[in-house]
């Protein structure tokens, strides 16, 4: 996807990423972390939130309103790409921290589904049932 993204920094395993969102509210420090959900299965939770640089606390429920949603999500998508380079056969489970956020993710995945599908198998979950996400 040829979308504008922020510069990202990562650690050696590419499970932790950070970048700075710059928009109408100023600079906001963002963190993306892939964490194994079960020890015996390669399923990773995609955690994503803002970092308070004063307290070090992470918040995945805050609404930043920084006016750069597309760029922020494109940057998260870039981290997925990088994560799969290191963990090619794993599954990333992504769900918003609220219903509205999950809906926002669904809308953006749908918007770019044709391009995403060319590189990844994408499945959705409806009432605890896995379904293929198709363009």
């Amino acid at each position, binding site marked *: 996807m040829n979308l504008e993204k922020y510069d990202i*920094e990562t650690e050696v395993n590419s499970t932790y990423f950070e970048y700075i969102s710059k928009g109408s509210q100023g600079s906001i420090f963002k963190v993306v972390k892939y964490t194994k959900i079960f020890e015996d299965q390669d399923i990773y939770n995609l955690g994503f939130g803002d970092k308070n640089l004063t307290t070090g606390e992470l918040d995945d429920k805050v609404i930043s309103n920084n006016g750069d949603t597309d760029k922020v999500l494109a940057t998260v998508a870039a981290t997925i790409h990088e994560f799969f380079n290191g963990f090619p056969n794993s599954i990333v489970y992504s769900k918003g921290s609220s219903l509205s956020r999950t809906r926002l993710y669904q809308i953006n995945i749908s918007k770019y589904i044709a391009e995403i599908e060319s590189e990844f198998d994408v499945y959705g979950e409806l009432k605890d049932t896995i379904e293929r996400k198709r363009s």
Partner: protein
Amino acid sequence: MAVKSKEKQTSIKYNPALDRFKDMDLFPSKTQAEREHLKGRDIRKEIEDVINTERITKP
């Protein structure tokens, strides 16, 4: 140590100072919520079932 480019196209740089986060669960409540939600399920098997169903129903 200077950062080195890990993937040029997306401007992802390796920063050794961030290695301390590699084994940390930074969003433990969300991970726990997903663990509860997916408990007892075999997601890989569910995906295989979807693929097999598509194979059967494909004209």
